[in-house]
């Protein structure tokens, strides 16, 4: 029997793909271009908008360094790589190509972020999250937000793998002709 192209699973995959893809791409882009300070001054206090990318990356490195988890050389390399990795993963999710690979990678990345955020929160460190560029301190809401994102991402990954096991109706039609 041919399955419908609009099953609940496919709708969920599409929605999660768009949300996670857009968020990942935005997270990387925000670290490079530091947007939205103009009309969200209270949310992003004290930051000048749109500095050159080199300065934005060096500033992002100071945010990673504040977590005090990595040696300085690793902080610098991660700061220069992470925004581009996030943009690439976000775009790959949005495009929808080889979803199993990218969904797994995004889930692994988000689980890693979540562990670090929970550790920071439980230690009581009042540092900025740095998740979407410079911003306010890491709070319980940050933990909650990251927890929800991890949940969505893991569910998305499981659904993508389940979906891959059943043939797509359109793909079946192509095969038949």
């Amino acid at each position, binding site marked *: 029997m041919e399955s419908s192209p609009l099953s609940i699973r496919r709708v969920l995959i599409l929605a999660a793909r768009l949300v996670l893809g857009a968020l990942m791409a935005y997270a990387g882009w925000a670290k490079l271009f530091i947007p939205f300070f103009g009309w969200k*001054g209270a949310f992003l206090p*004290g*930051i*000048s*908008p749109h500095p050159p990318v080199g300065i934005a990356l060096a*500033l992002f490195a100071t945010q990673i360094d*504040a977590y005090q988890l990595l040696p300085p050389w690793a902080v610098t390399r991660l700061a220069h790589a992470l925004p581009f990795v996030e943009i690439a993963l976000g775009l790959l999710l949005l495009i929808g190509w080889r979803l199993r690979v990218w969904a797994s990678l995004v889930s692994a990345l988000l689980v890693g972020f979540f562990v670090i955020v929970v550790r920071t929160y439980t230690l009581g460190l*009042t540092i900025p999250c740095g998740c979407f560029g410079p911003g306010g301190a890491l709070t319980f809401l940050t933990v909650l937000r990251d927890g929800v994102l991890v949940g969505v991402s893991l569910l998305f990954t499981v659904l993508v793998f389940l979906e891959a096991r059943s043939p797509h109706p359109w793909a079946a039609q192509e095969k038949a002709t």
Partner: protein
Amino acid sequence: MFRRQLLAAAFLVGLAAATAGWTHAAPPQTGSSPIDPHKVFGSKNAPITMEVFSDFQCPACKTLYTGVWRQLFENYVNTGKVYLIHRDFPLPVHAHSRDAARYATAAARVGQFEAVERVLFEKQQAWDASGDVDGTVAGVLTPAQMKKVRDLVKSGAVDPEIDRDVTLGKSLGVGSTPTCYITCKGQTYPVIGPQSYQVFHEFLDQLLKQ
């Protein structure tokens, strides 16, 4: 099929690039509050102004002081690249930080801020436990200097200065310490939390390069 995906990617990249120029805001007015001349370091004409909101009882401030300050002074402040302004931001969660700020501000008025700042950070763990700020400060001042400092602390003459720093910090959005506002060429950047010197100096070098 893959061509459609490429077109979608190109559209998204274009959208991101187009929205990069959406907003612009004036930088916050750091350095606008009156500055105690004994709590500033380096040349006023330095290309970078660094305003540090600090709490003497905060462990992260101690980390910043012990890990970054000496090299920062050697390579940036003493060479005329950075103008450093100390601002007190005693957090209410620390029982003795307000007292420590009082003693440090009073010591600044007798020209001994650096010595008192050093001893307060270096012996933070001891006075954090005992609450003996007075005894800690007395260890690095002469009896005559200590008498003046005690008089200033008891009279409350230094409190308005600390309050001014706290008010300025709150107006800038300082929520935790240490928070550094670094201004270069009219642009201000916040650096929040403890840092290692290597990462910090790369950021300063980036600013100087632009």
